């Protein structure tokens, strides 16, 4: 693996890696349930869709000058897997600096042991969500991308 993960995300990866198969699914569901709702100002707005997720997921990454990255997600309750991935990324990266998020390797989820319970095909979504977050950040904070 390349660069070190932000500590919060690393802790989540470790938490999953230490679980057995059944616990991993329960934990993923906990992250799905823990995903915050969209704030009112974003509700009803058209956010970017993560097409790589088989079930609908929408993401918006925001950053103020020198401020932390804020991540917002929307997914229907019928799509708990997408919600779970979003919940992990939210818990691990919301509040990080732009540089920390941009330095997070897109294959960060490989060490979680989720592929065997969720299937490798479905795991592609995690990298796709992160890729879209990074692209939005680069567009919104061009200085940070240098």
């Amino acid at each position, binding site marked *: 693996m390349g660069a070190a993960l932000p500590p919060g995300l690393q802790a989540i990866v470790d938490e999953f890696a230490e679980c057995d198969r059944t616990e991993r699914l329960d934990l993923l569901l906990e992250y799905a349930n823990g995903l915050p709702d969209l704030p009112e100002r974003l509700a009803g707005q058209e956010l970017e869709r993560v*097409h790589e997720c088989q079930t609908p997921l929408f993401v918006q990454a925001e950053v103020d000058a020198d401020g932390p990255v804020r991540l917002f997600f929307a997914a229907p309750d*019928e799509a*708990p897997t997408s919600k779970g991935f979003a919940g992990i990324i939210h818990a691990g990266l919301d509040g990080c600096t732009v540089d920390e998020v941009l330095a997070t390797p897109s294959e960060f989820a490989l060490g979680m042991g989720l592929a065997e319970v969720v*299937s490798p095909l*479905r795991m592609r979504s995690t990298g796709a969500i992160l890729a879209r977050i990074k692209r939005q950040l680069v567009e919104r904070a061009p200085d940070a991308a240098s």
Partner: protein
Amino acid sequence: MPLPADHDPKFAAYAHPERLVTTQWLEDHLADDGLVVLECNEDVLLYHTGHIPGARKLDWHIDLNDEVTRDYIDAEGFAAMCAARGIGRGTTVVIYGDNFNWWAAYALWVFSLFGHPDVRLLDGGRAAWVAEGRDTTTDEPAVAPADYPVVARDDAAIRAFKEDVLAHIGQGPLVDVRSPGEFTGELLHMPDYPQEGVQRGGHVPTASSVPWKRAANEDGTFKTADELRAIYEGEIGLASGDDVVTYCRIGERSSHTWFVLTHLLGFEHVRNYDGSWVEWGNAVRVPIEKP
């Protein structure tokens, strides 16, 4: 002993009404011996958010496919998968799932490759059960393993491979059940779905386009026998003795149509090409028709 069939009047006009059950029938029979209910979804976590009481989870990707070879599990694997879910050869299996029963129909088709005698779909799937406010639970049932015999998989009758499809062009009807944009080659994947690396768009030469969804009502239940006949026999001229091949992108939507033709309309020779467009659109030197 198989459970009694559901004598719902809508089903009576289908060729094999015993292959479907209504939500009410299922609720009435949930506690019966000899019944195992399986939930098979696109979303692998959905079962864990709540499922029909007693239902066991079956994941199409993890439980039905070989981990290494791109193929289904073998006879030993199927026997072990069934046994772990309390299914014996004589068990009545009812399968339901999300997204219009796509993966439920796919799972039923895989059960049929192994000749499981009594396997049925829940008409309307998960959505109907939930919409009607019927009970769900997050409790996973304690399952007593059953004995399931090792029965060889028989691909010949209901599964088509690429070579079979090549030989079928010009010889018999092919039904492409993908969306219109995928059929013309404008799209390489389902609308709003991930691009899964298909290099060419279009369809198998001579295929007719009948998107799978035409067989379903908005609530996920199947259309009536008359409505289905008007589409498949009336519009594209299929006859029940025809040797028909269905395909889609990876074989799940075409399992839905396979179920319709085989069990609802009584066609006797329908094969599902599970390699479907992900194989055909990448294969070297196979013919493609566009638009």
